C-alpha cells in the first residue's frame, strides 16, 4: 500500500505520463493524414508513402504508444509503491 504523502507526486507523475503518451499520438493522428497527399510521391514497399504512413504508420505508432504507456505507468506505480500487491 502506498504512503499517504506519496499520492500527490504519484498523480502528478501519472498525469505527465498520460500527456506524454497521448499528445504525440494525437499530433500524428492530425498531421499524417493531412500531409498524406504530399508524401504520396515517394513509395515504400511499393505503397505510396503518405497512404502507408496514415494507414500502417499510425497503427504502429498506436501500438508503440500503448506498449510504452503500459511499461512506463507500471514503473511509475512501482516507484511510488502504488502497484497491486499480488
Amino acid at each position, binding site marked *: *500500500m*502506498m504512503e499517504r504523502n506519496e*499520492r500527490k507526486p*504519484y*498523480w502528478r507523475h*501519472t*498525469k505527465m505520463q*498520460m500527456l506524454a*503518451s*497521448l499528445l504525440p*499520438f494525437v499530433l500524428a*493522428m*492530425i498531421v499524417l*493524414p*493531412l500531409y*498524406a*497527399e504530399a508524401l*504520396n510521391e515517394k*513509395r*515504400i*514497399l*511499393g*505503397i*505510396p508513402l*503518405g*497512404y502507408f504512413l*496514415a*494507414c*500502417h504508420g*499510425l*497503427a*504502429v505508432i*498506436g*501500438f508503440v*504508444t*500503448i*506498449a510504452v*504507456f*503500459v511499461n512506463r*505507468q*507500471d514503473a511509475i*506505480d512501482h516507484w511510488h*509503491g*502504488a*502497484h*497491486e*500487491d*499480488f
Partner: protein
Amino acid sequence: MAITARTRLVNPRLGTYFGIFTAAFAALFVLALMFEQLGASDGLLRLLMFGGPIVLYAAIGLSSSATEARDFFACGRRVPAFFNGLVLGITALGGAGFLALTGSLFMIGFDAVCLSIAFYAGLVFMGVLFAPFVRKHGAYTLPTFLGRRFESRTVRIVAAAVLSVPILLLLAAEARFAAYAAAWLLGQSERLMAPLVVACAAGIVITGGMRSLTWSSVAQAIAALLALAVPATIIALMVSNLPLPQMTHGNVLRIVTRAEIVNGVPIVLAPPLAFDLPGAGIEPLIKRFVQSFGSVGSLSFVLMSFVAAAGIAASPTLLSRSGTTPGVYEARKSLGWAVLVSGVVLLTLPAIAVYLRAMLLEQVVGHAGDRLPMWFQLLQQAGIASVEAKAQTVRLSAIGFERDAALFALSIAAGFPQVIVYLALAGALAAAMAALAASLMAIASILSEDVVHGLSGETASEAARVGTARLALLGAAFVTIGLAIALPADPLQLFLWSLTLSAATSFPVLLLAIWVKRVNAWGALATMFTGLVVTIFMMLLGEAGAVDTSSALAGAVGLPLALAAGLVASRMTPAPERSALDTVREMRVPGGETLYDRELRLLRLKNRTQT
C-alpha cells in the same frame, strides 16, 4: 479476498481449450471444402458453414454458465490480458469494421482510413484514459461507476438512460450486419435472418452472462481472424509469394493507380467539411484509391477520426469488459493486445480492398460489356455489382458495387471454392455476433443493475440480480429484433450515430469523473444532458440539411460543449463531499482492493451481523 495469487485466478488450460476450438473450426472448414469437391449440395455447405460455428460458440457459451453476480457480470475477474484484448479488439470492430469498413475502403480508398484510425486510436485512448480506473473501481456497469463516483442515485439513473441510447443504436447496427452476413450465408432474406441471429446471440450468453460472453467471444474472435486471413493470405501468396497481405499489396496498389490514370478517373477534391461515405446498396465507384480527401473533406477526416475514437474509447459496451481482468495492470495490458489485434485486422482490410479493385480494373474495366468475366456476371446475378451501359466498353464510372459485399466478393472474384466465400461470411458473422452479444449484455446489465436494483442499493440477493439480468437480456433481444427490422437507415450510419452519441455523452462524463476531482453530481448531470441534447440537435440539423456538417460529426460539437458545461456547472455548485473525493483518490491508485468488491463485502458483513 483482496490478495489472491494471480495464478489461482486465471485458468491455466485456456490455451489448450481454444487450441481445440481453433482445430475444430479449421477441421469444419476443411471438411466443408472436401464435401464441395465431392459434389455435396450447396445447401448442405451453407448450412455447415452457418450452423457448425454457431454450435461451437453455443457449446462454449452454454457450458460456462454462472449463478453468482460476480461471474455473471464480471466473468469472475479472471480473464487474462491477451484473451480480454482479443475480444475487445474484435468486439470494437464488429460487423461494421469487417463488412462496412472493407466496403468503404474499396469504394473510396484512402478516405475511409479515418474510420480505421478511429478504431485503434479509440482503443489507445481507452487504455490510457479510462480502462485502468474503471477496473480499479470494479463496478459492473458504467452507470454504477458514475453513480458511485458522484454519490448520487440521480446520476446513476440518468446515466443509465443516456448511455442506453448509443447502445441501442449499436445493437440495431450490429444486428443488421449480422443479419446481412447470415442472409448471404444461408441465401435467405435479411428480415428473416435478423430474429435468428439475435436469438442465437442472446441464447449463447443468457446462461452465463459475461462469462459466456467472454469465452464465446474469444472463439468468435479466433473464427473472425481465421476467416479474414485465409482468402487474403492466399491472394497475397499468388501475387507476391509472401503470405503477408498487409505488407505486400504495394505492387497491386501500383497496378491499381496506373489503371486508374489510364481510365481517366478524375481527381476530385471535396470541401473540407464534406463527409460522404458510401451508403448501403449499389453505389458507383468514382474516386481514385490512394488520393486523399475526395469524398471526405480534410477537416471532416480529422474530426471523424477523433469523434469515432472518443466514441469507441468510452463505449459502454467495451468499457464494461475492463472489469473482467484480474487487475489494473492486466486491464492496461489487455488494451495493448486489443490495439495489436485490431491493428492487424485494420491493415488486412485495405489489402482486400486493393486486391478487389485491381481485379475489377484489370478484368472488367475497358472490356466489352457483353464479354465480362464469369465472376463479374455471378456478382451481377447476385445483385452485388452492376454495369450501366451494356454494349460499349465498360468504364469504371459505370460500375456500381454493394458496399458491404466487398469482403466476400473478393473470394468470388478470385475464383475460390464456394466454401471460402462462406468462410469469409462466417467470419464477418462471428465478429458481428460478438459485438451484438456484447451490446446485449451491456444493456441487460444496465437494466438490471441500475434501473431495477439501482434504486434499492445492493441489497438484492445474487439470484435476484442474475435472474433480472437474464430477463432484461431477453427483453433487450426482442427490442433489438424490432429495431433491426423497423429502423430503415443504413447500418453504417446507425453505427456512426452510436459512436458520435457515445463520444458526446459517455466520453466527457468519464473524462471528468476520473481526471477532474472537483466535478460533482451537478457537473455530471450537466455534461450528459448537454452532450445528449446538443448532439441530437446537431444530428437533426445535419439530417434536415440545415447545416453543412454530416450528422455523424455531431459529436464534434457535443463533446467540447458537454465538457465545458460540466466544468462550469461544477464550479457554480458546492464542491463534492469528502467521501466522494476519497473514492476518486482510491480509484486513481492501482494498489489495494477493488472498490466495488470491498463495498459488497462490507455490505454482506453488515447484513450477517444484523441477522
